[in-house]
């Protein structure tokens, strides 16, 4: 069995659907942060069968919880201090998410209008459905594309 050591300070994202950790790494823009990240993929899980885990050594405030909630609000967020879990953060679905994900509908005005903020609103909380504020196209979780930070 492969062992990955503890982190002293930071957060651990647990119960990520197997195979999704790389996408979360990109959407949280962890590549732009000056911190160590451990990505554990296909770990055994009683609850899920297989799961991914992300261990990140940086301040929890640098984590965009809204982005994480939109991707999968069932992910567990453990806050680590001095090598132990000091808190578990609940993920709640944001009512709106601004300038994070791109609308992929080629007929949407966001595809041509310069500097228009891409906005999605929570259309159905029960089914976790987000829709584009402009064209109302359903947000497709399988083809997420992040808005480039200017």
């Amino acid at each position, binding site marked *: 069995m492969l062992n990955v050591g503890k982190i002293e300070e930071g957060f651990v994202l647990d119960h990520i659907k197997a195979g999704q950790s790389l996408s979360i790494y990109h959407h949280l823009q962890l590549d732009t942060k000056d911190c160590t990240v451990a990505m554990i993929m296909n770990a055994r899980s009683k609850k899920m069968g297989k799961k991914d885990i992300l261990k990140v050594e940086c301040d929890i405030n640098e984590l965009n919880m809204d982005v994480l909630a939109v991707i999968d609000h069932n992910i567990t967020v453990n806050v680590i201090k001095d090598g132990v879990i000091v808190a578990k953060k609940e993920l709640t679905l944001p009512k709106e998410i601004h300038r994070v994900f791109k609308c992929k509908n080629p007929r949407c005005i966001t595809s041509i209008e310069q500097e*228009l903020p891409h906005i999605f609103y929570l259309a159905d909380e029960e089914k976790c459905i987000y829709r584009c*504020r*402009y*064209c*109302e*196209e359903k947000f497709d979780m399988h083809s997420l594309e992040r808005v480039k930070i200017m």
Partner: protein
Amino acid sequence: MRHLMNPLDFSVEELDSLFDLAEDMMKDPAKYADVCHGKKLATCFYEPSTRTRLSFEAAMMNLGGNVLGFSSADSSSAAKGESVSDTIRVISCYADICAMRHPKEGAPMVAAGKSLIPVINAGDGGHQHPTQTLTDLLTIRSLKGRLGSFTIGLCGDLKFGRTVHSLIEALCRYKDINFIFISPEELRVPDYVTEMLKSRNISFKEVISLEEVMPELDLLYMTRVQRERFFNEEDYIRLKDFYILTKEKMELAKEDMLVLHPLPRVNEISVEIDSDPRAAYFKQANYGVYVRMALIYTLLELGKKEA
């Protein structure tokens, strides 16, 4: 200041007032012939349209106002690369109200966000066409005497037809509506619509045969199968004449059933039906002018100034 982006932007009560006003305008056009004197409507049409643009222009002229605008993106500054946000800021300096049609979905909403004048969505891609829905509702209310307590059959392209989706959403706010969706398998109403109806306990059924349900209908809303929605010409040719409303089929219908159609029609309604008193689609085009007159009057807050 208010805009109209979606037919649901107005409450049922506000729609009632709008339709009362439209009916009053129909009864006494002279009373309203000069209420927009000195006002200008900008028709910003980034894609071609005959009925909608001319209906808006006729509406403004009937109110004594003037009209300016463009009827294709090529003849506007969009051809030079100007954004919708910039265009509406400029148009706001020239006109008092704007009707905008745009091929990109959500464009009128972007315009409304930057505009200093009321913006009416005159159709944005396959998304919304609220003034068509208001026209449909006014036609039903005026000719049936009520909005509610009827069975409506929607027939043809129920998958891509934006007028159908908007009409269903708008009718859901009224009581005792029974929907019958008549379409070939390939053009069935989208799942999100049927899911919405189920969640609100609204009665509906989906059938393929028009003849089978004809005797049940109080209203029949026919739609055109649109060539531009198909990637495959073969599919279009196979489906375009799937439903043709003929005299024989009309014989199965109730005596007071009404036939509606957002127009343009191609083959789906035989011209022999035009003389049938139940054919209401040309009357519907006439109601379209009055509902737009009432809308312009309301958004310009002309009634408030008089009060």
